[in-house]
């Protein structure tokens, strides 16, 4: 049941999305088939010929469509046939086609897969951040702030220590990202452990502080000739190569413009480390004990305060690593725009993945598919790509209500059985 809930939530969310698409995406077009239908419905040929010139024109607005046909056929005919014509001209978008376009763009070939992996990489990390803290009973919604702090640290190291060779600079950048994110994450951990302040409020506030701070730092390290608010470029040695560099020599044809890069291995390593840390080490055991029951953990001699701070620091470090993909793998500079929202999406990823490391990977892939596939529907369908955000929000809602929903369903079923017996 535990693993079923997210799948049910995804299905329910897609159904909700389908209803929205069916209800709101309407277009009025006069096509050959419309004219044939109208002929069959006994609309005089003379009337049809008058609106023939509008053939193939798309209207999303009913009023505009009716105004145009009325001006062509005259008010008298319009009163008689107008409603019928708009009825036949109305077409709705087929939600299955929309979803098919999303998944086709994301999964039909290697290129699509590559983009999905590129988009999933930072989400795996920000999702892990939330999931890890959750194991300690902490709700870290400060992923956004920890991520931009880490991202900036990565960039700063990348454009400052330009003399270092790649095998020193790349690990140094990664460490800097993890350290900055971890430090930023340990602040709410410390405030929770020592002052008893709930981490949800402090992490929200620290998000916005971090965003403002990095925006200031971006302007401080902006190349003077640049009009765009971004920092200096990181050294060549700090840039990660895209995967085509390795795949093409192996005979696997991979597009050079595909953004998936070696940062994906950092994300996979983070997943493995999390799984190992939580299940196989003393630290992981203590963190889970604190999350399960802090009072009992304290009695058993586990230092709750220390583990709270540590869990938040590790959580922040994961979020801080998201910049490896965004900066070292893609933009090569710091700019808030390439990070915006990834930290918040991580919360959704963690919840849909039921706060398990591998669950986060699956959920991040789903978000990656939606994000990349969403770009395609703008072109191939009449549905704005923001439907993807609606889908994400609805999945999230259904995931969190699923526990109570199944409990109620079971209750009802049990009562029925009792009544029958």
């Amino acid at each position, binding site marked *: 049941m535990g693993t079923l809930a997210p799948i049910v939530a995804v299905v329910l969310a897609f159904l909700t999305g389908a209803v929205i698409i069916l209800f*709101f*995406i309407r277009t009025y077009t006069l096509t050959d088939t419309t004219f044939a239908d109208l002929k069959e419905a006994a609309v005089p040929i003379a009337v049809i010929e008058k609106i023939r010139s509008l053939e193939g024109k798309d209207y*999303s607005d009913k009023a505009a469509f009716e105004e145009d046909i009325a001006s062509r056929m005259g008010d008298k005919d319009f009163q008689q046939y107008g409603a019928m014509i708009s009825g036949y001209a109305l077409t709705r978008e087929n939600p299955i086609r929309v979803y098919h376009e999303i998944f086709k763009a994301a999964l039909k070939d290697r290129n699509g897969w590559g983009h999905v992996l590129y988009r999933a990489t930072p989400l795996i990390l920000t999702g892990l951040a939330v999931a890890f803290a959750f194991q300690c009973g902490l*709700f870290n*919604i400060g992923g956004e702030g920890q991520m931009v702090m880490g991202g900036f640290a990565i960039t700063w190291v990348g454009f400052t220590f330009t003399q270092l060779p790649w095998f020193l600079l790349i690990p140094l950048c990664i460490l800097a990202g993890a350290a900055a994110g971890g430090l930023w994450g340990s602040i709410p951990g410390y*405030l929770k452990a020592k*002052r008893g*302040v*709930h981490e*949800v*409020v*402090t992490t*929200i*506030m*620290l998000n*916005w*502080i971090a965003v*403002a*701070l990095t*925006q*200031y730092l971006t*302007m401080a390290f902006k190349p003077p000739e640049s009009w765009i608010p971004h920092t200096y470029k990181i050294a060549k040695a700090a840039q990660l190569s895209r995967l085509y560099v390795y795949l093409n020599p192996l005979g696997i044809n991979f597009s050079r413009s595909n953004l998936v890069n070696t940062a994906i291995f950092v994300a996979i390593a983070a997943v493995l480390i999390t799984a190992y840390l939580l299940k196989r080490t003393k630290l992981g055991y203590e963190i889970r004990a604190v999350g399960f029951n802090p009072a009992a953990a304290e009695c058993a001699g586990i230092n709750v305060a220390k583990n709270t701070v540590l869990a938040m620091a590790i959580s922040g470090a994961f979020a801080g690593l998201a910049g490896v993909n965004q900066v070292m793998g893609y933009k090569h500079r710091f700019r808030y725009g390439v990070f915006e929202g990834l930290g*918040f999406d991580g*919360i*959704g990823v963690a*919840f849909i993945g039921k706060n398990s490391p591998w669950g986060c990977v699956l959920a991040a892939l789903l978000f990656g598919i939606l994000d990349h596939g969403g770009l395609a529907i703008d072109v191939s369908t009449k549905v*704005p790509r*923001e*439907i*993807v*955000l*609606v889908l*994400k*929000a*609805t999945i*999230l*809602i259904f*995931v*969190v*209500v699923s*526990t*109570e*929903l199944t409990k109620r369903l079971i209750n009802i079923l049990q009562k029925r059985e009792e009544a029958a017996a």
Partner: protein
Amino acid sequence: MIESIFAILASTIRFAVPYTLAGLGGTYSERSGVVNIGLEGMMLSGAFTSVAVTNITGSAWTGLLAAILVGMLLGLIHAAVCVSFKADQIVSGLAIIIFAAGITVFFSWLMFNKTQIKAEGMLRVPFLHELPAFKLLFSQIPPLVFVTAAIVVASHFVIFRTVFGLRLRSVGEHPQAADTLGISVYKMRYSGVIISGALSGMAGAYLSLEHAHYFVKGISGGRGFIGLASMIFGKWTPFGTAGAGLLFGFGEAVKPYLPKIVPSQFIDMIPYILTIFVLTSAIGRATPPAAIGVPYNKE
């Protein structure tokens, strides 16, 4: 000199309105025991709805009403998820933010084919707007400012002086005790969250109709969170929230007059830093309602 002081004061008040309204919304919700970080999303939806409805119907007051209704609808969803389904209140709030960010742009593409929509109307008070003195006043301080001030005073009265307010606070402090006295915990929490939606929707309408005069993708830009900060800094009281809203509004208003040495980003941080300070008792002490964030189980 005097002129710029007046200009700063007027724009302080203008900036304070959305913070105060959203903060008040948060106060109603949190006093009843439900965290509402979805204020931001409710505000954004209100901002879009008010402009869309104003442009279609031609009446800004109808737009305002529609924004309040949409806010209430989102509040109802948040209440259903958190109170009836006992789901995580933070995740539900976050989902509302994501939903609002998507659905507002979705409809602005569908209805207007662009993501920046000019508001074709303003809130005008019948009769009063005809008088030159009031016309001048309203051009500096929009009518909704006065409505907001009235709501602040009324909220203080409602929360601290009425039976409804007492019940609202009691379900947020100790729902079991309230339940044994025959107070419906669910009903009170639903009311608190729906009121918070209405006020946030209104804050959004103010933002797009009266402040910016247009709607643009993501216009709320974190103001819902500053509202949340105002509520905490104001210690969950209407007057405190309004005071904090004015303080944060002042920071925003004084920005263009500051010397270049002070980076504007540091002014932006002030509300959040102050909130962390009051929570850690570095200055004063802010204690949230006791039962906040915990779903109530009747059995």
